[in-house]
């Protein structure tokens, strides 16, 4: 090692022993406060770098929430609700995904029960027009149920007969409810709608009973099978005024 290198080594060693400058505690605290404030500000500013992206994400999130909320709300919505059309869409979707005669019958009977509930609610709110529509819907479902039963009878009469009994029981329940409703309303239009609904329900049962081969069920009308309120020969008793 040359003398020059030795001297420089000594100098280097001396430099290593120099005490470092240490910041005063106050400076470090002040620095941290400033750095923290700057970082928070930077984060806030950075979050605004992509406003369009944020807007899209927020819109998507809001859309998902809106749809989910609308679907949830529509499930129990009534005909005078803004969500009611969505309820029809969901019901149709459910119907498209229902297979098998028994399940299809259950589907139609379920919707028939729903329409009757809607009609009762609309009568209570004095929305006779909407109640009339709901009763039409009730009849549509019962007719569809009758057609399902008819078709099933041709392929399996025993199963078809059992399904017909299910329809008869459902119509009997509906008729009892309609009869009660009929006794509560005084509006002639409402009374007429209820009576028509009861008649069409009875016709649906007759349709279900028709199979061209005979199903052995003697009763084809609510009254003939012991249904109805028993207050008159007609399935629809005289309305109270």
């Amino acid at each position, binding site marked *: 090692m040359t003398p020059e290198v030795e*001297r420089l080594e000594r100098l*280097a060693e001396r*430099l290593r022993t*120099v005490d470092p*400058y*240490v*910041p005063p505690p106050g400076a470090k605290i*002040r620095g941290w406060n400033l750095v*923290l404030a700057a970082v928070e500000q*930077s984060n806030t500013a950075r979050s605004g770098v992509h406003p369009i992206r944020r807007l899209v994400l927020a819109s998507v999130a809001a859309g998902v929430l809106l749809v989910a909320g609308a679907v949830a709300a529509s499930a129990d919505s009534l005909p005078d609700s803004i969500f009611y059309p969505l309820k029809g869409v969901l019901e149709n979707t459910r119907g498209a995904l229902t297979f098998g005669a028994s399940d299809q019958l259950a589907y139609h009977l379920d919707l028939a029960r729903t329409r009757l509930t809607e009609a009762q609610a609309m009568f209570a709110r004095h929305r006779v027009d909407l109640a009339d529509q709901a009763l039409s819907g009730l009849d549509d479902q019962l007719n569809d149920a009758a057609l399902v039963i008819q078709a099933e009878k041709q392929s399996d009469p025993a199963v078809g007969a059992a399904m017909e009994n299910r329809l008869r029981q459902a119509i009997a329940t509906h008729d009892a409810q309609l009869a009660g409703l009929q006794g509560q309303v005084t509006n002639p239009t409402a009374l007429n709608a209820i009576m028509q609904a009861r008649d069409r329900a009875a016709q649906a049962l007759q349709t279900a009973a028709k199979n061209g081969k005979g199903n052995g069920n003697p009763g084809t009308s609510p009254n003939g099978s012991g249904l109805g309120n028993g207050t008159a020969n007609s399935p629809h008793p005289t309305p109270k005024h």
Partner: protein
Amino acid sequence: MRPLGKAASDDDRPLIERVRKGDQDAVRALYERYFDRIYNYVYARLGRAEDAEDLAIDTMTRGLTRLDLFQDQGVAFSSWIYRIAHNATIDHYRRHGKVSLVSLEHAPALESADPSELAVEQMSNEDLHAAIRDLTDEQQQVLILRFFQDLTAAQVASIMGKSVGAVQALQHRALGSLERALQGRAVN
């Protein structure tokens, strides 16, 4: 000599990721890890506590708020933060003027001073600091980083953007220049 603490490099990556995700604790950890070192570096360069404080805070603020500019590809965060400190120092010089820009690299030794008689062990820290500040910018950098910051030649090379060999050569020349500067001070 009081240690400045570990000069982390690889260890910084998880912290940096957390900072990018807005983790305040990670910001604090990086601040604690580097503030003292940066303060020491800029103080050694400038020689004024007030300026060192402001520049250290400014460096840490820039480093921790602009991590989007830091790409951890070949350059460690520690190198990046030292470069910010170096640039801040240069900016400070430009605004306020440097005390001395005279290069002592090739300055002849004073005839009346014998280098072998230079008692470096007895020199005060302030004399050493003052003599270092008379050196060129790169010489100051290499001496401060190598001996005050206790970084390896490889780390200094990364900070200065040079090869390790170039840093070692620069270090040798810087020590020679410092010796001459100290001789000049001893004569005066």
